[in-house]
């Protein structure tokens, strides 16, 4: 068991506080950070994410085992890859041009031909990037979380190239409230993206596996 994994959640918008709350409920020590002064999110932390610790991003990352990226993707370029080196990085971000605008860096080779997490991982070459917690809407992510074994527990997919990092994030996913489905390497994480078969869906394990399987077959 990796009971002592410490989390740094980057981003205090829609998604970050939800993941932070679920992680606190699951017993993880959680620091939360934005690009600015932790004082700016002290009230948010106290009232919306009780139990989390607001910190400077650099400090939160330095002390963390797992760093969750829950920032708008267009701010990703501002992150310093050096600071994230050696960390497990959960990429919970999405490239969703219809909603957030077109980002040249993520149009690389055409939006559909490459996964956004592969582009994230290329920039974070010193980190073990795992795509996870991105495909369930932030409202649902909180409302539908259930403990392991609950009859109405749902599934959440993850993908990454580093087996140890994938194991840690699978455990995180499970403890947050979802049956983790390991899809394979980061490339396989493309099925979790906007437009993919499970994006925006909250599915049971068999439903999830069927949806992903049908997608794989249709691509053959």
């Amino acid at each position, binding site marked *: 068991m990796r009971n002592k994994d410490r989390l740094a959640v980057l981003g*205090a*918008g*829609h998604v970050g*506080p939800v993941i932070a709350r679920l992680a606190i409920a699951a017993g993880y020590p959680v620091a939360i950070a*934005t690009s600015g002064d932790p004082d*700016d*999110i002290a*009230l*948010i932390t106290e*009232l*919306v994410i009780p139990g989390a610790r607001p910190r400077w991003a650099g400090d939160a990352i330095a002390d963390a085992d797992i760093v969750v990226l829950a920032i*708008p993707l*267009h701010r990703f370029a501002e992150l310093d890859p050096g600071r994230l080196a050696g960390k497990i990085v959960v990429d919970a971000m999405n490239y*969703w*041009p*219809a*909603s*957030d*605008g*077109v*980002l040249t860096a993520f149009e690389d080779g055409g939006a559909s031909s490459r996964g956004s997490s592969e582009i994230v991982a290329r920039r974070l070459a010193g980190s073990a990037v795992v795509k996870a917690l991105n495909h369930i*809407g*932030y*409202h*649902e992510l*909180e*409302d539908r979380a259930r403990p392991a074994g609950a009859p109405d527990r749902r599934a959440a997919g993850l993908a990454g190239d580093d087996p140890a990092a994938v194991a840690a994030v699978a455990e995180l996913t499970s403890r947050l409230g979802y049956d983790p489905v390991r899809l394979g390497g980061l490339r396989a994480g493309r099925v979790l993206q*906007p*437009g993919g078969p499970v*994006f*925006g*869906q*909250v599915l049971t394990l068999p439903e999830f596996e069927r949806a992903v399987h049908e997608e794989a077959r249709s691509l053959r």
Partner: protein
Amino acid sequence: MTLTYAFGLDTFGDREGGADGTPLSHAQTIRNVVEEGVFAEQSGVDFFGIGEHHTDYFPMPAGDVALAAIAARTEKIRLGSAVTVLSSDDPVRVFQRYSTLDAISGGRAEVILGRGSSIESFPLFGYDLADYEDLFDEKATLFAELLKGGPVTWEGKTRAALLDQDVVPHLESGPFPAWIGVGGNPQSVIRAARLGFSLALAIIGGPPSRFAAYSELFRRALEKFGQPPRPVLVHSPGHVAPTDEQAKAEFWPRWRQVIALVAEERGFVIPTEASFDAEAGPDGALYVGSPETVANKIAANVRALGATRFDLKYGLPGLTHDQLMTTVELYGREVIPRVRELLG
């Protein structure tokens, strides 16, 4: 302390259907919205809001013009945007349009600034969605300055600088109510408090009670920034008919249709009948039912969220003018008095 509650209706100019199911023209839909606004006052509704949209199914890009037509035919009802997509507009022009509405209506204008679910105005007016946050932050800051009245000096990246600029028409009786619409980002709540706006919570899915922390966050943030207390508004979709069964029969097929339409652009999940029933039930975000059902739910959530205003977003593409006039009438004559009674 006795709280003063207010209850409004909002529309996006949802393109109405004819009796035979064919869509009415954009022009006829706009004329019908004006009639509904006038009828809202006659039915006892406190506020009528029009949301900015630029699509074939919500043909309502210039709601302020329709609001002016309603203003000319009413005496008491407050009139405003719900919402104005400030990021793709010029704050000076927004201020001028709504201060003109304030003049025409004798001080009844309001604005809710935000984005709503509206993204189509960005490419239409040449803005990049990726700049959304920066645009909104800067423009809301300027709008707060404009509301104070008097000459404005301002400099930023999103429009021409202003140097001791007199912006007309002058406000006759001080700033009109201005809200920032928030959909679930706590940093937007902090921004509303910091800039001195009131808080409009747009709750369109899931249990409304989860937003209670946002009301408290807003209250505490106002204190922190040395701002006076300001009200919290809740905006949610719904439909009122004589019975629960009729309300669902009219609303649900249209709801599925419009979400399916938007889902293609936005990646929304298409609702099932079971998910709809959950949203229309006591713990969901939709107010669909008889006057008694809707009133009970409004009263419970207004209380839980510490709000003093509730705006029902009524109408959906394809609903008929008659169906909407019934919603307006039942909401004004039965729902609002019942909610007031329940809130004591």
